[in-house]
């Protein structure tokens, strides 16, 4: 497996910086979840991203490429490290501010808007390349679905936590 597809460029430096910043934010955030739940949050974000990338990002759909091109490189794997801190922040704010159900839709919409903003920056820096008619606007559907499911998972796990 190659480190990069072409040459180590702007997008690679940007991803490394973004990973450092996002994990820096995670380390400074108070740890309000148990070890098990934190691992589940990380695993959920990695699995969701992996599912989308390896399903819609590969042939026959091939809607986007990550980093330099379609080949699976080490830097593609580094990109996955961007997702867990974002998921943690999402649930951290949900728990910290005790978002009530009546505001939940607005909360998810706000986070989706933020995620789209971040994705636009990544796209501008050459991390994501849209293909075959795909564009950033379709990512709205993915973020709405993934974030809603994360809330469902979190609430699915909470009652059990009080029982066990």
């Amino acid at each position, binding site marked *: 497996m190659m480190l990069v597809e072409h040459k180590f460029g702007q997008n690679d430096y940007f991803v490394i910086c973004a990973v450092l910043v996002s994990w820096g934010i995670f380390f400074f955030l108070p740890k309000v979840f148990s070890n*098990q739940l934190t691992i589940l949050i990380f695993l959920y974000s990695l*699995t969701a991203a992996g599912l989308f990338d390896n399903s819609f990002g*590969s042939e026959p759909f091939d809607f986007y490429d990550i980093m330099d091109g379609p*080949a699976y490189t080490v830097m593609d794997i580094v990109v996955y490290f961007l997702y867990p801190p974002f998921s943690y922040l999402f649930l951290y704010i949900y728990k910290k501010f*005790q978002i*009530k159900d009546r505001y939940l839709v607005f909360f998810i919409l706000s986070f989706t808007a933020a995620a789209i903003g971040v994705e636009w920056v990544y796209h501008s820096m050459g991390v994501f390349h849209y293909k075959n008619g795909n564009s950033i606007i379709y990512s709205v559907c993915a973020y709405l679905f993934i974030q809603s499911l994360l809330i469902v998972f979190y609430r699915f*796990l909470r009652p*059990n936590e009080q029982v066990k």
Partner: protein
Amino acid sequence: MVFTFYFVLSWMMMGLFIFNRQENRGSRKELLFLVLLTCLINTHTYLGLFETFKWMKTTTTPKLYLAFLLFRSVFSPLFVSYLIMYINNSTLIKQFLLLLLYCLIILGIDKVNLSSELYTFKKWNHIFTVIYYLLYLFFAMYAFNWFKGLQEQEVKCKDDVGRT
């Protein structure tokens, strides 16, 4: 045909997970951990390992590809997770028999996938598939036992999520 085959199998595994789950086999968190981990591993292995090293070639026909997605990211993870829950609560002889049955099912599934042209072997054969799935099972079992041993030290915080 093969799409329906995997749709039924995936539906069946989901049904078993949701309706035939026994509390003493594992908590919700442990179950979710298993499913997410097995899904993450299997999803990345086919594209990141088998395709990258040109060991096998996945179909590019959309209808077959959808069946492949069901097999790779739904059926296989749920099947392996369900088996791990069983193996963990069985006697040594039963564990051995379950492993034998697992190998036979994997061999059968691999033959179905090949004959349906979900993928084609390049530098690969059925024995390698069985070895991969055994390693996959053992790794997931090890990770599952590690996860079970993690201490639950949640920071005490009033949890009002889900309140209207």
